[in-house]
C-alpha cells in the first residue's frame, strides 16, 4: 500500500473517444495482499419502465463528479480500512444498448469488505454524483430520467 494517489482511480470518460474498460478496472484494484475483488458494471438496457430504449446520453459536470467520486472513495476507505483499492469510471456522451455506463471495482484482503464497499460506492455514485441521463426511445422521443435531488445534501453531510 502506498500513498493516497495509488489506491483510487477515477474517470469520467468521453465514450466517443474510448469505452469504459472493466478488465483494466480489475487490474487496477488487484494487489498481492488482496484476496477479494467485487465489481459492478452498469450497462444500457433496451427497455425501461416498459418503453423500448435505443440509447442514452449522459450529461456530466465533470470536475464535481470527480470530486464526488473522490469523496465517496474516502468514505469507503474510512469505513473499510486503508487496505483497499477502488476504481470508479462513468461514461459521458451518447451510449448504445449494451454499452457500459459505469464501472465500480473494489479490491480488499477479504471478500466481505469488497462486496460491501463496492455496493456502497455504486449506490453513492448513483445518488450523489452530478450526472444526468437522457433516454432515447424507439419512437424518436427522449426524456431526462427522474433523479435524486441533491438539495439538503450539504446539510445531510455536515451532520452525518
Amino acid at each position: 500500500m502506498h500513498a493516497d494517489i495509488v489506491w483510487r482511480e477515477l474517470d469520467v470518460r468521453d465514450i466517443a473517444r474510448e469505452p469504459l474498460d472493466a478488465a483494466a478496472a480489475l487490474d487496477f484494484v488487484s494487489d498481492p495482499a488482496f484476496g477479494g475483488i467485487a465489481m459492478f458494471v452498469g450497462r444500457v438496457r433496451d427497455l425501461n419502465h416498459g418503453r423500448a430504449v435505443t440509447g442514452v446520453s449522459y450529461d456530466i459536470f465533470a470536475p464535481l463528479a470527480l470530486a464526488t467520486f473522490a469523496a465517496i472513495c474516502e468514505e469507503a476507505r474510512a469505513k473499510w480500512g486503508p487496505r483497499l483499492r477502488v476504481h470508479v469510471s462513468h461514461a459521458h456522451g451518447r451510449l448504445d444498448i449494451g454499452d457500459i455506463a459505469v464501472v465500480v471495482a473494489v479490491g480488499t484482503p477479504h471478500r466481505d469488505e469488497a462486496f460491501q464497499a463496492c455496493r456502497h460506492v455504486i449506490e453513492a455514485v448513483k445518488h450523489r454524483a452530478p450526472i444526468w441521463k437522457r433516454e432515447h426511445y424507439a419512437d424518436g422521443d427522449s426524456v431526462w430520467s427522474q433523479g435524486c435531488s441533491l438539495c439538503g445534501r450539504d446539510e445531510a453531510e455536515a451532520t452525518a
Partner: protein
Amino acid sequence: MKIDLRLFGAFRDLDPSGVVRLDVADDATVASVREAFAAFGLRAWGERFQPGLLAVSAFASEREVLHDRTPVAGLGELAVLPPVSGG
C-alpha cells in the same frame, strides 16, 4: 456583480451554450442566485422554464454542493444541478 451559472440536464436544453450570466448583489448568497435564475428563466424561456425543477435543484461549485446561505462572491462560476440520475 456578474456570475456565470452552468446548466446541466434538463436546464441545458434551455440554452445550448450551457451557461447563463446573472447579475446579483455583491453580498449575494446561493439563495440569491437561485432567485435571480428563477426570474431570468421565466423572462428568457417562459413556459419552457420549470420552477418546480429549480425547487429541487442544488447549486454547486466545481468542488462541492453549496448551502443556500453560502456567499457566492469570489466563486465566479456556479452550476445548477437538477436531480441526478447517473449509473
